[in-house]
C-alpha cells in the first residue's frame, strides 16, 4: 500500500509494492495494477480533431516522467503476469493497452471504455449464463489493423490454464480467467464478445469487480504465431513471457518506441488511440483526450534526491512513485515557482493485526481493551505530526462512491473514538476485568481519577501472560508505523500487559507473517504486527474477503467468522451495486467488532510536477501515479 508519508528508501518500497501487489491481486482488483485507464464514454463518437476551445492545442513536446526502477520488459503479457508485475512496468506499458470496460478517474466510475454502451446483465441460457459485450466500431490497432472481438477471445484463451488449452499466465491475468466461473469467451462476430458462465455471476466478476469485461485486449494478429509456437514447448509460459513485445501494436494513447536498460524507456503517441479527441466527463471534470505530447520518456532515477533536483532543473515533468514523494521536499518545491505539489488521499490503510489463533489475542475482551487504549487522534495528530489521519473502517474515505459516512461514524464511536485518556484506561480496565483477567499488581484508578500502572497481567485461565511481541517496520523504513508500535506498546505496558514493540526489517516481517506450512496454510507464528495494504480496484472494492474470509488468500490472522463468510458471499454474488454496498458495510461492521485488523491511520500521497505541464484534474484518489501520470490528456500549461 502507499505508506508514503515520510518514508523511505523507496528502493525497498518497490519490494513493498511488489508484495502488496501480490496480495492485492490475490483479492482480485482490476487488471494491470494501479492503473485504470481513463477513457471516453461509449456514447461519445471519437472525433479526429481536439476541440479548438481547449487552450493548449497540443504541442507539449516530450512528456518526461521520472521513475525509480527500471522498466524491465516491453511484453504486455509479462507485465500483467506475476513475473514482471511491477508498478514501474505498469507505468510504462499500461497506457498502451485498453479494455472493454474500466474505471474512470477522478470520479471512480465504472463504465465502457472500448465497449459500445453500458454493461448489460447476464441472461440465463439453459444451465449457463450468457453475457454479451459489443466493441465500438472503427477502432484500429496502432499498426492500422482493426480491433475485433476475436482479439478479446484470443486474449482470454491465451491466459487460461493448460487444461483449457491456454498458456496459463499467473497473477493478475488469473482474475480475468476464473475458470470455475467462466466457461468460455468467444467472438460471435467482429464486434460482439460472448461470455458463457457456469452460474449466475455477481458484479464481482461480471461488471465492476474483475473479470472478462476488464481484460486488457491483446492483438491476435501479432501474437497468434508466437503463442502457437509457445504452446508446443515444454514451458509455454516462460517462452511467451520471454518474447519481445517491442513491435506489438498498441491500443492506448502510447506505443512502444525504445528502451535502454538502466536508463530510460520511451514511447510515442499512438495515432490510432481509440479515444483520441474524445470529450470525457468524470467526477464533474470534463476534458478532451489527446495525446498532446509528441513523445513520452520515462527516465530512471536512483533516488528521490536526484529526481527532485532533476525536476527543479526542468529535466522531468512529473515524478511517478506508488508511495508518493517524501514530505521534506515540500518546502523546496513550494519555493520553486516552476513546481507544484499536490496531495491526495490513498486507496489503502495501515493496521494493527491480532493473531486470532493464539491467546490472549484470540479473546475479544483482550482485543477490545487494547483497541480502547489506542488514542488514534493523539497518535496521528501529535505523534505522527498530523500527516496521518485516523481510520476506523477498512475502506478508505477517499473512495467517495463507496464510503458510508454514517456507518463509518457509528463504527468510529463504537471503536472508542474521541475518548480522553482516563476514560480509555477505565474502559480497558473494565473490559479486562469482565474478561476475568487478573494482575500481579493491578492497575488502579482512584476516586479522583488518578491512574496507577499495573504489571503482570494474568489470563482468564490463571496463567501469566508473558511478553507479547508487536512486530513493526523499523523507524528507518517507516517512522510512522515504528512510532505507532512504540506508542501501542507504551499504553499496553501501563495496563500491565507486557507488549514489546519489535522493530523488524520489512522483508523479515513479510517472511514471518506470511509464512506457510507444507499445506500452504499460514502458520501465524507471531502475536501482533503492524503493516499496511494498498487496495486494488476503487470502483468495486473486492479485497475484504481476501483478508478476512476463513479461506481468504491473505487471511494470515486466522480470523474465522461464519457471519463474515456469509456477508462476503452475498457481496460476491450481488447483482446490484446497492446489494454489494450493503454487504460490504455488513462486513465492515463485523471487522470493527471482531478486530482481525484494527485500522490505525492512513496518509495522503504527495506528488510533484512541473508547471510546464497541465492536467485536466489533480484531485484524484491515490494521485496522478494511479493513472500513470495521465499521458493521454496531459497538456502544456498556458
Amino acid at each position: 500500500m502507499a505508506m508514503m508519508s515520510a518514508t523511505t528508501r523507496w528502493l525497498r518500497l518497490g519490494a513493498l509494492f511488489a508484495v502488496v501487489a501480490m496480495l492485492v491481486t490475490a483479492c482480485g482488483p482490476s487488471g494491470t495494477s494501479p492503473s485504470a485507464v481513463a477513457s471516453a464514454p461509449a456514447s461519445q463518437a471519437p472525433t479526429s480533431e481536439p476541440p479548438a476551445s481547449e487552450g493548449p492545442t497540443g504541442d507539449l513536446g516530450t512528456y518526461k516522467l521520472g521513475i525509480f526502477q527500471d522498466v524491465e520488459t516491453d511484453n504486455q503479457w509479462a507485465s500483467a503476469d506475476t513475473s514482471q508485475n511491477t508498478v514501474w512496468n505498469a507505468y510504462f506499458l499500461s497506457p498502451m493497452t485498453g479494455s472493454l470496460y474500466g474505471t474512470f478517474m477522478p470520479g471512480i466510475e465504472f463504465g465502457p471504455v472500448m465497449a459500445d454502451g453500458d454493461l448489460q446483465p447476464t441472461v440465463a441460457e439453459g444451465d449457463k449464463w450468457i453475457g454479451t459485450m459489443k466493441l465500438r466500431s472503427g477502432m484500429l490497432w496502432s499498426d492500422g489493423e482493426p480491433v475485433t472481438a476475436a482479439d478479446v477471445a484470443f486474449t482470454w484463451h491465451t491466459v487460461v490454464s493448460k487444461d483449457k488449452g491456454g498458456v496459463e499466465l499467473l497473477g493478475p491475468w488469473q482474475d480475468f480467467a476464473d475458470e470455475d466461473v467462466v466457461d468460455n469467451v468467444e467472438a460471435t462476430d467482429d464486434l460482439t464478445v460472448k461470455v458463457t458462465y457456469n452460474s449466475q455471476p455477481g458484479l464481482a466478476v461480471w461488471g465492476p469487480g474483475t473479470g472478462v469485461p476488464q481484460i486488457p485486449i491483446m492483438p491476435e494478429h501479432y501474437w497468434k504465431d508466437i503463442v502457437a509456437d509457445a504452446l508446443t514447448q515444454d514451458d509455454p509460459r516462460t517462452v511467451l513471457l520471454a518474447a519481445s513485445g517491442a513491435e506489438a501494436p498498441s491500443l492506448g494513447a502510447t506505443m512502444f518506441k525504445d528502451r535502454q536498460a538502466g536508463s530510460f524507456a520511451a514511447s510515442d503517441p499512438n495515432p490510432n488511440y481509440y479515444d483520441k479527441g474524445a470529450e470525457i466527463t468524470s467526477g464533474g471534470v470534463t476534458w478532451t483526450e489527446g495525446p498532446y505530447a509528441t513523445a513520452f520518456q520515462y527516465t530512471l532515477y536512483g533516488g528521490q534526491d536526484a529526481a527532485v533536483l532533476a525536476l527543479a532543473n526542468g529535466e522531468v515533468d512529473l515524478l511517478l512513485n506508488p508511495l508518493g514523494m517524501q514530505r521534506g521536499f515540500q518546502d523546496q518545491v513550494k519555493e520553486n515557482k516552476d513546481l507544484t505539489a499536490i496531495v491526495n488521499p490513498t486507496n489503502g490503510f495501515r493496521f494493527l493485526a491480532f493473531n486470532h489463533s493464539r491467546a490472549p489475542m484470540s479473546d475479544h475482551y483482550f482485543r477490545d481493551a487494547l483497541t480502547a487504549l489506542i488514542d488514534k487522534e493523539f497518535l496521528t495528530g501529535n505523534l505522527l505530526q498530523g500527516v496521518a489521519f485516523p481510520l476506523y473502517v477498512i475502506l478508505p474515505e477517499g473512495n467517495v462512491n463507496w464510503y458510508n459516512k454514517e456507518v463509518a461514524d457509528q463504527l468510529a464511536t463504537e471503536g472508542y473514538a474521541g475518548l480522553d485518556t482516563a476514560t480509555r484506561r477505565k474502559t480497558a480496565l473494565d473490559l479486562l476485568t469482565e474478561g476475568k483477567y487478573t494482575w500481579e499488581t493491578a492497575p488502579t484508578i482512584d476516586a479522583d481519577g488518578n491512574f496507577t500502572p499495573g504489571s503482570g497481567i494474568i489470563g482468564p485461565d490463571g496463567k501469566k501472560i508473558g511478553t507479547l511481541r508487536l512486530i513493526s517496520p523499523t523507524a528507518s523504513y517507516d517512522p510512522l508505523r515504528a512510532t505507532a508500535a512504540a506508542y501501542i506498546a507504551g499504553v499496553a505496558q501501563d495496563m500491565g500487559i507486557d507488549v514489546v514493540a519489535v522493530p523488524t526489517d520489512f522483508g523479515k516481517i513479510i517472511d514471518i507473517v506470511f509464512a506457510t506450512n507444507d499445506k500452504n496454510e499460514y502458520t501465524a507464528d507471531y502475536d501482533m504486527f503492524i503493516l499496511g495494504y494498498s487496495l486494488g480496484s476503487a470502483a468495486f472494492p473486492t479485497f475484504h474477503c481476501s483478508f478476512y474470509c476463513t479461506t481468504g488468500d491473505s487471511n494470515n490472522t486466522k480470523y474465522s467468522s461464519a457471519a463474515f463468510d456469509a456477508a462476503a458471499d452475498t457481496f460476491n454474488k450481488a447483482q446490484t451495486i446497492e446489494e454489494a454496498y450493503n454487504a460490504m458495510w455488513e462486513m465492515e461492521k463485523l471487522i470493527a467488532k471482531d478486530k482481525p485488523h484494527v485500522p490505525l491511520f492512513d496518509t495522503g500521497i504527495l506528488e510533484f510536477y512541473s508547471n510546464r505541464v497541465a492536467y485536466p484534474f489533480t484531485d484524484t484518489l491515490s494521485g496522478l501515479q494511479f493513472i500513470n501520470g495521465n499521458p493521454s490528456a496531459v497538456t502544456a500549461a498556458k
Partner: protein
Amino acid sequence: MTTTKDQGADHGAATGAVAAGSPASDAFAHQPLWKVRLALWRRSLGKTWGLFRENKMGMFGLGLILLFACMAIAHPILMATVWDPKIYDPVTGYSAVELQFVIVEGEPTDPSTQISLQEARLRLNPTVKVGQTVTIPVQPAPPSLKGPNPHLLGTDPQGRDILSQLLYSTRAAFFLGAVAALTTVLIATTVGSIAAYFGGFIDGSLMRLSDLILLMPLLPVLILVSALFEINMVMLGLMIGVLGGFGGVAIVLKAQALSVKVKSYIDAARVAGGTHWHIVLRHIIPNVLPLSFLYMMFGVTEAIAIEATLSFFGLLNVPMTWGIMINTAQNNGYLLSGTSYWWLLFPAGLAVTFLCFGFFLVGRGMDEVINPRLRAR
C-alpha cells in the same frame, strides 16, 4: 620505538656516570615495583606526549575527540537532571510547537490564524475541510532557546530533539569504535606477532587467511550479512573488528613484528631460557603495540564511517545513531534542502566527519611519534 642510535655518547670511563640532564632514578629505589612501573609508565607517556604535543594537527584531533567525549558524558547527565525524558528522549521523545489555524478557501487574510485549504492539505493530510480548526505542529522545528523546553539544535521531522540525539549517538559511536578497534588490534597484533615469530606453516596459513579477508570488500559483505541476519551494534563492531583485524592491519603488523623478530634481544631472551610464549608476549607484542594503537585509531574511524553508511541505507536495526539521524533527514526528503534545514543534516553529518577526522589526526600524530622520519625537519 623511540630509540635512536645517536643518543647518548659514551663517556669512555667505566664509572657509568649518569648522562647529564637525565632525572635521577634513585628516587625509585626501595619502592614497591608496581609503583616504580607506574612512574616509569607515566614518564614514558609524558615523553610520548611531549613529542605528540608538537604535532598541531594531532593535538587538534585530540581536542575534537575530547569534545566528543564530553558530549557523550553530557547526555546521561542532562537526561537525569535538566531534560524531561518524555520530551528529550532521543528515540521516543516528542515535543513540537503547535500552531492553530482556521482553514479558509483561497488565500488567507490573516496568515497567523488562517491557512488556505491547499496549504493545509499539504501540511497535514488530504482529509481536512474548509472551516475546520487545525493544529499544525512545527516539526522539524528550527533551533530555538525559547520556551520551557528549548531545542538548541531544533527537532527532527518526528519532533525529537536533535541535540539529545546527537549526544546520545556520540556514546554509540564511541562504543562501536571501541569494540571494533579493540577487536582489530587484539586480532591483528596476535595474528601478526604469531605469524612473524613462528613463520613456516602457521605464518603461511594465517597470511592466506588475511589475503582472503582482504578480498572481502568490507561494506558489501556487511550489507549482505545485515540483510541475512539481524545484527546489533556489538556484532557490527565485532565484525568490523574481525574483518579489519585479519585483513590489512594484520599484514602491516606482521611486517613490524618481523623486524622485531630479527633483533638480537629476541635471541638474548631465548638464551635466557625464555619460552616462545614469553618472547611473543614480552618482547614482540610490546614492540608491535605502538603501531597497533595507530591502527586502532584508524579502526575507530572506519567503524564509525561504516556504521553511518549502513544506517544511511537503513540496513541496521539500531535505535539511534548519527547514521540514523541522516537517514531520517534523507527519508523525509530534507537532504537536499540546502541550508534551510541545516540542523537536520549538518550536526550528524559533521559529527561523523569530525569524530573520524579527530581519530584520524590523532592516528597520524602518533604515526609521527612512532616514525620519527615523518616529523617535520
